[in-house]
């Protein structure tokens, strides 16, 4: 009974011994923005403020507003105008935005501004007696900054360990009354606007919403003198209007603020109401086409779906270049996400609604690809029409490069080239960079990628982009997409060594992009590539032994070309890892001679020191694991890959020349092949990793997709079906010289069949009944003919009885 339990539980237990390193299928997922493919990025000067609205799968609130601090510098400029050009803008910025209110206040109190901010030209002017009122204002505004932000929660409370100090809130009310009086006495417009702005802000926070609106109208509405404080103040009027319930008017005001400044764009978009009925009413308030185009753009800038009809509508209102440029870029990024992400990765588009997409992924992919291509053509035609109507300039260049990309998507490269040739030499840097990307894409599709000149041209482009990426991390997205598509082209041409290295490059770029917000940068992802298996993963799946030879040669080249130097990177510090992979592939091909020859080139103790070999290749490979219920497993066995293969070859050679040895030798070889299968104790001879649900998850990994079918073919299907093991057991049965050998061969044929049966049934759908296991005739032979053998006595078990009884 105990034996029976053991044999039944053998499979399930053995599946628990998983190796985790190469298993990418569970526990960790890349986010959608990381895997999203995007070749296109064309940014006009002034579009930076729209970055939170670029097409992305990231959460909206993970983006930051006005990265370039355009608004803040405008404010600094106003101070400079007030105080004179001898005051440096950077000095003003430092005091206004990089000096804590506390540090400023203490310096003011102790009259140590000059001492503590020595050399600051802004401070030097502020402390002059004639500028006393300006200094008082600044001190006041810093105090309000402290009230608003509490210095980002720096101050804790003595009351308990986990509380913060908020005692200062009451001070705002006090300041409110001071401000009212102060504003009446002021004559300097610069100061009046600043105090008024603070007053509006405080009014809003104190819920004096009517005051906030009235104050804006009194001090900013239709007033002379352009100031960045005007849209900032209007923001509070919009919020106050929204809070009193006038959604349409608030929406209109949000659109005004959105249009007039950068810093508040993000928050305006958060509050902007995109309901079609509200948009309709908001449009009715617009006074001209520009205002209408802004309102419609705002309603479209976060639309994740097809927005071409809206684009056409907006275009009719003559939108400014930046609005239209952002919308065009978004639309192209959508199209390429829909088309390229499923084509070149194992994922669907990164921005998607609902999860139904995956139900019949392959078929859905085909249908959607067709629809998306049709949409891309429609979009292209619209852009060509716009191009015709647009005067030469930045927007026309952007449209040219956009059209060229859509041509590339639709395999119309000659037309694409025409549009690219029209781009001005002094176009914005981002457009010129995109033009180079387009040329590279066209090269991939239309040139011989194996020609040295093509490779040289591609690598020049890639290296230049790499340089750009150091200053603009978003370029890593282009690099990731570009290297991924080039890799795919080489893969199509069976240049696996080059394709694999480019694949690794693309992964490296992807990682750099993923982490650009976390200041980790490029080098911190080096650990991926220092991992033993990770750089081998692509080649483990796609390479032949000759591909590995090419890889080894590439690695050793003394005078590589620029292209070769670029692709080979620093991935394989130890050539023996490649040789071991080559031997593994040769073994999967059942080319024992090449396997042995390759293993002989590797140092004997290599497997003791690297990867997980010594933990998974540590049992006698000639003792079938399936029979472990009747013997004590010894995990201290000194396993050596070379010795093992040599022994198999010796056994086979001896069997070839000596019939008397055939029975015993074939049994041993059968055991060896059984153990190198999924079911054996030496499976790591064939694979680098193993999982419990190979059909479903393990071999369906996030980078390479479903690999199960490929794995089933390994070693003439021996890995999952024990074909070779069975072949040798059957041969052993034929040539056996005694009943002990026959008994063992019969028993193992049963074990092979039973293992495969269990494996197949374990993966049946819940509602499907498993077919009955039908033992082969050898199993009956084991009982009928060899019941007196020692093999029978040792290994006979009730499970066998069960199946025979069922028969």
């Amino acid at each position: 009974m105990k034996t029976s339990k053991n044999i039944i539980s053998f499979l399930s237990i053995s599946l628990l011994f998983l190796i985790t390193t190469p298993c990418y299928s569970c526990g960790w997922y890349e986010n959608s923005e990381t895997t999203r493919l995007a070749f296109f990025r064309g940014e006009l000067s002034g579009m930076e403020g729209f970055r939170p609205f670029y097409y992305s799968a990231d959460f909206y609130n993970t983006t930051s507003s006005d990265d370039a601090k355009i608004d803040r510098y405008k404010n600094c400029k106003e101070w400079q105008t007030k105080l004179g050009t001898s005051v440096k803008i950077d000095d003003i910025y430092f005091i206004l935005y990089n000096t804590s209110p506390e540090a400023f206040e203490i310096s003011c109190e102790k009259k140590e501004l000059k001492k503590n901010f020595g050399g600051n030209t802004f401070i030097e002017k502020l402390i002059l007696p004639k500028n006393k009122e300006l200094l008082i204002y600044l001190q006041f505004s810093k105090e309000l900054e402290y009230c608003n932000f509490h210095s980002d929660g720096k101050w804790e409370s003595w009351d308990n360990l986990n509380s913060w100090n908020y005692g200062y809130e009451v001070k705002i009310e006090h300041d409110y009354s001071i401000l009212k009086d102060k504003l009446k006495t002021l004559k300097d417009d610069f100061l009046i606007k600043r105090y008024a702005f603070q007053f509006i802000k405080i009014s809003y926070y104190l819920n004096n919403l009517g005051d906030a609106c009235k104050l804006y109208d009194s001090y900013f509405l239709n007033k002379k003198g352009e100031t960045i404080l005007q849209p900032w103040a209007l923001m509070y009027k919009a919020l106050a209007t929204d809070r009193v319930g006038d959604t349409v008017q608030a929406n209109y005001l949000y659109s005004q603020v959105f249009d007039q400044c950068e810093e508040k764009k993000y928050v305006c978009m958060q509050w902007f109401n995109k309901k079609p009925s509200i948009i309709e009413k908001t449009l009715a308030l617009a006074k001209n086409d520009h205002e209408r185009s802004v309102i419609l753009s705002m309603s479209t800038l976060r639309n994740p779906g097809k927005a071409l009809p809206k684009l056409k509508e907006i275009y009719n209102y003559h939108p400014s270049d930046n609005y239209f440029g952002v919308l065009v870029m978004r639309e192209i990024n959508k199209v390429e996400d829909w088309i390229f992400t499923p084509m070149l990765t194992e994922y669907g588009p990164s921005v998607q609604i609902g999860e139904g997409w995956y139900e019949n992924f392959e078929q859905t992919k085909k249908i959607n690809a067709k629809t998306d291509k049709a949409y891309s053509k429609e979009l292209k035609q619209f852009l060509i029409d716009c191009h015709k109507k647009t005067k030469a300039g930045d927007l026309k260049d952007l449209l040219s490069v956009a059209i060229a990309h859509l041509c590339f998507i639709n395999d119309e490269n000659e037309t694409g080239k025409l549009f690219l040739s029209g781009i001005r030499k002094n176009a914005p840097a981002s457009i010129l960079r995109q033009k180079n990307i387009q040329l590279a894409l066209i090269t991939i599709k239309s040139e011989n990628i194996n020609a040295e000149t093509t490779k040289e041209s591609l690598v020049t482009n890639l290296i230049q982009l790499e340089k750009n990426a150091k200053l603009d991390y978003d370029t890593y997205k282009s690099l990731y997409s570009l290297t991924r598509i080039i890799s795919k082209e080489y893969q199509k041409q069976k240049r696996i060594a080059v394709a694999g290295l480019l694949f690794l490059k693309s992964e490296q770029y992807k990682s750099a992009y993923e982490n650009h917000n976390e200041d980790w940068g490029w080098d911190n992802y080096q650990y991926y590539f220092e991992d033993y298996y990770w750089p081998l993963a692509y080649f483990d799946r796609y390479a032949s032994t000759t591909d590995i030879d090419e890889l080894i040669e590439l690695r050793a080249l003394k005078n590589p070309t620029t292209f070769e130097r670029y692709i080979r990177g620093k991935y394989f510090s130890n050539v023996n890892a490649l040789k071991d992979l080559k031997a593994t592939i040769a073994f999967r091909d059942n080319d024992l001679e090449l396997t042995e020859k390759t293993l002989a080139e590797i140092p004997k103790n290599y497997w003791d020191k690297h990867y997980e070999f010594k933990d998974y290749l540590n049992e006698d490979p000639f003792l079938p694991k399936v029979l472990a219920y009747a013997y004590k497993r010894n995990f201290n066995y000194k396993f050596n890959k070379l010795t093992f293969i040599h022994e198999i070859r010796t056994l086979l050679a001896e069997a070839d020349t000596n019939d008397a040895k055939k029975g015993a030798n074939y049994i041993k070889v059968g055991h060896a092949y059984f153990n190198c299968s999924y079911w054996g104790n030496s499976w790591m001879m064939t694979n680098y990793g193993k999982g419990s649900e190979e059909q479903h998850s393990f071999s369906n990994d996030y980078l390479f997709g479903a690999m199960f079918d490929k794995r089933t073919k390994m070693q003439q299907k021996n890995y999952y079906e024990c074909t070779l093991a069975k072949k040798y057991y059957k041969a052993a049965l034929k040539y056996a010289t005694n009943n002990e050998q026959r008994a063992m061969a019969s028993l193992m044929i049963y074990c092979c069949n039973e293992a495969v049966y269990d494996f197949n049934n374990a993966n049946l759908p819940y509602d499907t009944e498993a077919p009955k296991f039908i033992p082969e005739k050898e199993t009956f032979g084991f009982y009928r003919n060899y019941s007196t053998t020692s093999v029978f006595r040792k290994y006979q078990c009730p499970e066998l009885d069960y199946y025979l009884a069922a028969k």
Partner: protein
Amino acid sequence: MNSSRRNLSPFLLAVCCLSIAMLISCNPKKEKQNRSFCFWKTAFELSSADNRMMNQMGVNHLYIRYFDVDWNPYEKEALPVGTINTYWYSSDLKNISFTPCVYITNTVMENASEQQLNELAGRVRSRIESILAEQSDRYKNQAGGPYEEYHFSDIKINKDSLKRVKDSVETFSIKEFENKISEIVIDCDWTEKTKDKYFLFLKHLQELNTKHTISATLRLWQYKDRETSGIPPVKKCLLMCYNLNSPAQYNIKNSICSVDELKKYIKDDTYPISLDVALPIFNSAVIFRNGSFKGMISNVNLADYENDTVNYQKLKDKLFKFKTDQIIGNTVIRYGDELRVEQLKTTELDEIADLLSEKLELDDDSRVTFFSWDTTYINNYGIENIKKYYQLFEH
């Protein structure tokens, strides 16, 4: 008779062994707690790898920064800042004793009234007590958890007695934790102007703390210029042998420490108060544009800059010029900007340790500590070197 002697002998042996064991346990020889590190992070977490490293170096004491106190000009009072997160992730803290540290800015001393400082002493004391209570609670849970899991899970025992045993484990753990702390260190860069207020504060804090001895940090200028700085009214000072210059200074080799600079401060005489000594192993890099300070990068490695000849040109020892534009954090670094690596080489730290061990008169119980605990910092010097520095002071 023979038989009784045969029976008696093992009994006597057992009694003797038991007595010796009891003697040992009742009169334990107090182990010196003088191999120390400063733990200056905002969350207290020690991994088993950290523990292993500590064991390898024989570290048996930690100075732990509990919180800072700064002056809030708007509230017109001193408030706590950056209180340590008291999560405990440590597999083995049995052999480690702790000293809580509180950093008080000199601005507090400049601005607070005497009455406010008296109040502050009470608040500091009570906050330390709260953190200790929270930490001991964590420690208790940590100590109680595995003990119960590994020692009782397989023993059939009635629940009441199990609870009693568990309670005794918890009581023991709290007591054990309390025994780990005998001192509190106050860190303040006081000046001639603020010394009277600060010393009054220290006295008052000591009066309020009967369980713990109050110590103070001592900067090198305070050590050297005793007439100006005064001698703090404490039994022990921790001499901080680093931060000799401001990192923002351009024309210096480094702001951390150098043996030549140190020689200007360390005299042959004896400081009137018993000293512990802190040595620097931290590092950073300072970025300058046209000689003006632009920013700092923490936790760097000198070798990284020396080996990267594509991006950096070595101008002189530890000073590099950026050869390419880069983004570091949110700052754009341009070609021509300079970077000074503030990291003492092993040979430099050797010299500093030699000088201090030779010149400073330390007690048998004096601690040698390193600022601060970070495996990267430690690996820059190597475990063997750190052990060597400890040994220098032990002989």
